[in-house]
């Protein structure tokens, strides 16, 4: 029977929720574009099919990883989580500093609508373009969610349930927003969310690698807070330094 470490369950649920929120919002933009231009049957059919595949991956991978010795999982999954988290954090720093462009959901929506409208329409049966486009975007964005859920669930030693609850909550929020707005969710501060998720995932990845290597963290589990604060401080400082460097270079 899995035991849940509630000291880690809260931050895990939060990281799962925020990371999934970002990914589902990106998927929603394309699914809405497919629905608006090619019809809702194909849009929802493709997204639903992808969701079933993603749920199957979580159900297969999650319990399998739990059977591997925890220190090995923590080192392996922690390293992947660190690569993933620091990549997000670096990108969020560069976006916040104005070095790379912010993600624009409305622009992406307009581009998708233009592309999908230019393709031949199907009047009977399933629209393959709609199903394939919707399936692909849900898989591409969802696979990131699956990785986060499985990684956090396995490396934390029985945290699959809180991580999954966070992801499901995010999915419900995005579905509700999609139903209410019928347009891309562009008012959510996406880069701030990515910044937060990057800090959380990097802190977890660092902590678990340390645990896997047998390093002694000061304050044990509480060191997660110190790691998060450290990453946050370094990132805020980096944003400021990057702005200065970019201004000097231009």
């Amino acid at each position, binding site marked *: 029977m899995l035991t849940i470490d509630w000291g880690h369950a809260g931050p895990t649920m939060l990281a799962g929720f925020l990371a999934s929120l970002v990914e589902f919002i990106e998927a929603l933009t394309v699914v809405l574009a497919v629905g608006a231009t090619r019809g809702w049957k194909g849009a929802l059919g493709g997204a639903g099919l992808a969701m079933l595949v993603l749920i199957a991956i979580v159900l297969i991978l999650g319990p399998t990883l739990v059977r591997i010795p925890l220190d090995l999982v923590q080192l392996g999954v922690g390293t992947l989580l660190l*690569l993933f988290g620091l*990549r997000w954090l670096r990108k969020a720093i560069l976006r916040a500093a104005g070095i790379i462009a912010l993600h624009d959901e409305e622009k992406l929506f307009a581009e998708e609508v233009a592309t999908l409208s230019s393709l031949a329409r199907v009047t009977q049966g399933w629209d393959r373009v709609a199903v394939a486009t919707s399936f692909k975007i849900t898989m*591409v964005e969802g696979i990131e969610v699956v990785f986060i859920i499985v990684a956090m669930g396995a490396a934390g030693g029985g945290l699959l349930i809180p991580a999954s609850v966070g992801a499901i909550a995010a999915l419900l929020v995005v579905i509700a927003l999609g139903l209410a707005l019928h347009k891309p969710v562009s008012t959510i501060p996406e880069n701030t969310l990515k910044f937060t998720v990057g800090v959380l995932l990097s802190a977890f990845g660092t902590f678990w690698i340390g645990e896997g290597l047998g*390093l002694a963290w000061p304050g044990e589990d509480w060191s997660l807070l110190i790691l998060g604060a450290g990453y946050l401080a*370094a990132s805020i400082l*980096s944003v400021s330094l990057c702005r200065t460097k970019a201004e000097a270079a231009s």
Partner: protein
Amino acid sequence: MNGLKTILSELFGLFVDDAGFALAILAWVAVTALAVPRLGLHGSLPALIFFVGLLAILMESALRRAKK
């Protein structure tokens, strides 16, 4: 096939955006795993060295990109 290729490339892209950055992180994890125990450091110092190294890698990589 094209869809599978996209998904696999997206999967790789989850972890590697800037190759130098990803390699530096992996190298630092390997150095920590192999070298730090041999230095005879005790207590929380190896963990702190590991963390500070990661912060330095993150900041250096972001600043290097900003200079381009």
